[in-house]
């Protein structure tokens, strides 16, 4: 299993300087991928723009959306953005797509929330029909999402949780892959949040997650409490995911501080 690291494009106060420096360090660190999140109605840097910047300052590392909310863009614009990053990164790009979880993102983009699943399927069918060259992952935890993944994707992007949640999702992804008659096995990516440092750092990370996931109600507390705030917690998490067959585990920062990537590199290096 490889370890990826998130680019802090949705954490508070992230700047261009932070993102490019972070990307440089990721490129020279023990990481297999550098991934971004996607939110429209939330203070953040647009994921394809952030990856374009990262592409300009990296040579080796794979760039990824983990995930991008496809239906917020038209099918043609999404394809254009993805192909652009794919070219800017010289093919080092994995396009993770999902429907996201927030209605207000759909309201902000003027997209019909009720059609989100069908819209994503259409986008995927068009990307495939137009021979989009890069790797495509599909996320989501419903039956239709697994079927969509197996019909159009190269693999599955899990949305986070303890290793046993990943294992259960991976079983479903495999079942769907078989059902659709795909050869081999789907690629499997997982993710988790981290904040490494003193109590203030952990608190800041928790505050960010509570804010980012405020729309889930009390579940935001559950996500915040799962934030990995020690080297030991990260190592246990990594071991758990590796045992369940994850191939790329992306650890996403919760604090906009470039020290975070160095601390993470130390833990997993």
């Amino acid at each position, binding site marked *: 299993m490889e370890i990826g690291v998130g680019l802090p494009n949705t954490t508070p106060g992230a700047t261009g300087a932070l993102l490019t420096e972070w990307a440089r360090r990721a490129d020279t660190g023990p990481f297999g991928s550098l991934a971004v999140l996607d939110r429209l109605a939330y203070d953040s840097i647009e994921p394809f723009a952030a990856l374009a910047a990262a592409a300009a300052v990296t040579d080796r590392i794979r760039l990824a959306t983990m995930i991008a909310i496809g239906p917020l863009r038209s099918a043609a614009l999404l394809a254009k953005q993805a192909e652009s990053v794919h070219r800017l990164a010289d093919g080092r790009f994995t396009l993770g797509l999902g429907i996201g979880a927030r209605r207000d993102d759909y309201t902000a983009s003027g997209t019909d929330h009720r059609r989100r699943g069908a819209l994503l399927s*259409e986008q995927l*069918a068009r990307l*495939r029909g137009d021979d989009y060259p890069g790797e495509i992952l599909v996320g989501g935890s419903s*039956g239709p999402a697994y079927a969509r993944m197996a019909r159009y994707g190269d693999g599955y992007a899990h949305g986070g949780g303890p290793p046993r*949640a990943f294992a259960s999702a991976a079983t479903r992804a495999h079942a769907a892959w078989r*059902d659709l008659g795909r050869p081999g096995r789907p690629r499997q990516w997982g993710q988790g949040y981290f904040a490494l440092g003193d109590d203030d750092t952990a608190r800041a990370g928790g505050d960010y997650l509570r804010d980012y996931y405020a729309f889930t109600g*009390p579940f935001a507390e*559950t996500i915040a409490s799962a934030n990995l705030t020690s080297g030991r917690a990260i190592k246990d998490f990594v071991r758990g995911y590796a045992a369940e067959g994850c191939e790329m585990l992306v650890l996403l920062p919760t604090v906009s501080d470039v020290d975070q990537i160095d601390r993470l590199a130390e833990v997993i290096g």
Partner: protein
Amino acid sequence: MRVTIVGAGPAGLYLGILLAKAEQPHEITVLERNPADATFGWGVVFSEETLGSLRDADYASYLEITDTFARWDAIDISYRDTVLRSRGHAFSAIARKRLLAILQRRAAELGVKQRFDVEVDDIGALCADTDLMVGADGVHSVVRQAADGTFRPTSTPQGGTYIWYGTDLVFDAFRFVFAESEHGLFQVHGYPFDEHASTFIVECPEPTWRKAGLDQMSETDSIAFCERLFADELNGHRLLSNKSAWLRFPLLRNRSWHARITDTPVALLGDAAHTAHFTIGSGTKLAMEDAIALAAAFVRHGSDSTAAIDAALVQYERERKPVVERFQQAATDSAEYFARVNQHTHLAPPQFAFNLLTRSGRISHANLAQRDADFVRAVDVWFAAGHAVAPPPAFTPLTLRGLRLTNRMVGTAPGDAGLVLTPLTAVTPGGQVSPGSPTLCADADVARLRAAVAECGALGVLLGHAGRKGATRNRERGVDIPLPDAGAWPLLAPSPLPFGPVSQTPKAMDADDLAEVTDAFVAAAVRATEAGCGLVMIDCGHGYLLASFLSPLTNHRDDEYGGTLDGRLRFPLGVVRAVRAALPDDVPLGVRLTVTDWARGGLTAEDGVTAASAFAEAGVDLVHVVAGQTVAEGTPEYRRGYLNTLSDQVRNGARVPTLVDGHLTTVDEINTVLAAGRADLCVAEFLDQPAVRSAA
């Protein structure tokens, strides 16, 4: 902290006890609407594992509880004038009233304030005076209602209609009783809970309950009806009512198990938070385990600040929710089993019993063999048609007409599989899924197939036509992705509806097309027998041509080949009859059948069973059960064995042998499916995969 617990059932009292024992003492009040000695229900069941948890959590009450237990290790299944006994299931039960008395006394001893006969209506006011509010007040929780915008409960009725009686007959084991009445099948879930009495739950499907007139009967008439129906079992003993009423069981889930009312943290416990169908007997166990987890979360996080209390509630939910969800899945499978068990009355007693014991997916062939080796051996011997030395079911031969399979496992490549099945093989070049798909419409194809037969032994050929899902790219990078226009060929379908937004619009088949395709199926089947194929399978699955006639989503015809299910079946049935007529008598014929579209407005499982019956009548020997893929946006539910229940419905509803796929990943899963009579053959995924994964 000050804790207010609403509801003095097992969950509420046990939480009170455990919190009162904490190092940092809490001020605990339990409020109960009913009097201290009122109770509903008869006995409650615990497994050995639960007893271990109770022992560790509070030894004093554990001792008292286990002192009065009824214990047993057998499950008796009374069915068709026989009683089959399966041993090795260690359970205990106690009268609910007795359990509550023990917990009340223990709580009092630890200083927990208990107030009975208190009607709790203003939760907001109670919250103002407490640091933690706990809703342990059951499935109709008043506490939950006070913040249902945060808890977001959903409730769905499950299973049949049931009534909770007691009896003065003392069973010596858990006992299932199945009794046929003129109105349909009734079943009893019975178990002893002390030396004087047993729980006696009667259940039947809702239509049966109405037909029997039970919806109109008084309490005493209901009892009289059940006493008559189960007179042989009761043997003169009485049924006892405790305000017992016929109910549907609600499956209750909450999005969140904790919330805030004004500023006070609130947690839900037991039935207020979740239910699991009574047929797996886990309600009280889950409730008391909730209490243990919540008390432990306070030990870990403390309770001296709101932040600490919040952290404890988050941990409680994180720990318990996945466990409860597993039980709810098993309980749902169990409830659905009992709702359609009347389809199983043709099964021989060993198979009927095995199906019952493995209904919830928690016990497999191997688990059961560990508990009771003799029982499983008897099932295996029965399965192997009486051979005294019986192999496990997966390795038992099967004969379909002139085809003898050495085992029950189906694969895609030569090797250990009893039957090898080809990929979809097109009966015309225009019926290919992709340019590389195999065809069987020329002499060269026959030679290729003959070579495959020589390599595989028993080879089944899956003959089909891709219909509107043809002319797609190979599956390396996706499925149902159309070829570029230059490489594509024209498509046929019942109606001119493209599969997806970028797919070709197919031509609606006219009478000539129908005749040509039928002839092509017949010609291909004849070629298959020339090549030596042991089995011909006609594809009517996954949205390909014949399946697209069957589904109302893809067949909008207004001629005799559309409309009602009969009309939509006409063309696929015609093909099957024509092929059957052309095949030698000793060659079995199968159909791969989508039995539900898993899509709104599509084919349902009931339609699938009807279609399977029609195929069986037309001479089909085997139905390969598949589902979905009719349209791009379906709602499948993937998990291990996700087609087992559908296969069970088809096999036992249409009384036709079935082949099931559905992500069966071990021989044990396959043994379980076969012995239970959910299918007769299983696709074994592992036959196609390397056995050992390298450690790198």
